[in-house]
């Protein structure tokens, strides 16, 4: 059963979104003409849901606008990699630039959107996605801090709950931060959230109702747009 009030869609007649379905939900919110960086891992799946005529241009921080799909077979060119170091392709209208120019583009607020994975997102949009806080872990940040700070909008994609069942949308991050107050929206397998200056707004749920969601998340939520 899908209950849609003015501003909230509750899809309780089905289970949580699969990873690919979630990528499709994110893609639905990317507008024609946007310049977008898709982070390593789950966010790269979003590209599969952007139509060739979507007018969306993909940025990869290692120096390219106009990145195409992953390369295979004869199309593999080891001079043409994405940020995850996988061989990719080049679309018409592409441009190459060096690392300082690429990060100037990000830091300067020219990308309309970046989509990132996360360990935790706080109620005020703080992001933790680079370090588990494990003192034995080798720290490695890559371009995560630059992307989170620089893009005009930051969308996070993640499963809402850890394997232990704890929500990753938290009052305050316990993991080391990537950036403060940077996340605009959180797309998860069971709900999407908009983080505004005043509240965390639930836009859509899958596999559970808004009321169930509220019981499982410690962050105060708002039902649809106020």
């Amino acid at each position: 059963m899908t209950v849609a009030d003015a501003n909230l869609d509750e899809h309780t007649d089905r289970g949580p979104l699969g990873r690919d379905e979630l990528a499709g939900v994110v893609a639905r919110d990317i507008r024609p003409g946007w310049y977008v960086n898709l982070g390593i891992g789950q966010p790269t799946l979003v590209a599969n849901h952007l139509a060739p005529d979507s007018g969306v241009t993909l940025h990869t921080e290692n120096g390219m606008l106009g990145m195409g799909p992953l390369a295979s077979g004869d199309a593999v060119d080891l001079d043409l990699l994405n940020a995850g170091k996988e061989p990719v392709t080049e679309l018409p209208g592409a441009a190459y630039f060096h690392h300082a120019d690429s990060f100037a583009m990000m830091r300067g607020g020219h990308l309309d959107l970046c989509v990132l994975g996360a360990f935790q997102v706080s109620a005020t949009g703080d992001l933790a996605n680079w370090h588990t806080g494990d003192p034995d872990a080798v720290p490695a940040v890559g371009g995560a801090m630059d992307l989170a700070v620089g893009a005009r909008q930051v969308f996070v994609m993640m499963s809402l709950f850890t394997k232990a069942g704890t929500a990753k949308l938290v009052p305050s991050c316990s993991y080391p931060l990537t950036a403060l107050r940077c996340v605009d929206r959180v797309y998860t397998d069971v709900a999407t959230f908009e983080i505004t200056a005043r509240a965390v707004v639930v836009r859509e749920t899958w596999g559970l109702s808004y009321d169930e969601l509220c019981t499982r998340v410690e962050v105060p939520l708002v039902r649809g747009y106020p």
Partner: protein
Amino acid sequence: MSVVCDSADEAVAGVADGSTVLVGGFGMAGMPVHLIDALIRQGATDLTVVSNNAGNADTGLAALLAAGRVRKILCSFPRQADSWVFDGLYRSGRIELEVVPQGNLAERMRAAGAGIGAFYCPTGVGTMLAEGKETREIGGRTYVLEYPIAGDVALIGAHVADRRGNLVYRKTGRNFGPVMATAATTTIAEVRHVVEVGDLDPEAVVTPGIYVDRVVRVPA
């Protein structure tokens, strides 16, 4: 005034112990593998290396690390599926690590090359990577003060060079090369093709020869 050397060994001659070496490449794209191998043979030690990663598998930068030549590394992403050489050195306390956000790594080298004394950067504010660093509010936003990273030597990979050292890169092989070339006292490039002066389109030269001290052609 040709900058072309006959071999990678000739190209890296004279790198001093204790040098800071900027090493280009992102993945294998733009990675100066022949120059790194030559540097291992050359023998310089007690090096500080600046590179995006900390080596993969057992070749290239990882081999330099394994040979015990690197005292400290500055990079954005040391941990990779095949970074076992670095991981082992790090966990046993035999290498010093400074993790730098990737854009700060690039911008700090750019500052060194551009004669900028320091700059206020929004990246990393409020994170453990900015702990102990000076911050400042500018126009209602908080910035961290970041200092230049200069190299004694840069080892970079490019696609084509002319004999004066003008460089053209290929696709995402460009990455850190142009920035590192500006930030080092001595810039050494390995390239797949060497052409005569005048054969490169002056509009398409990415690294002007003023930044390049030595060039060596390596197998494509």
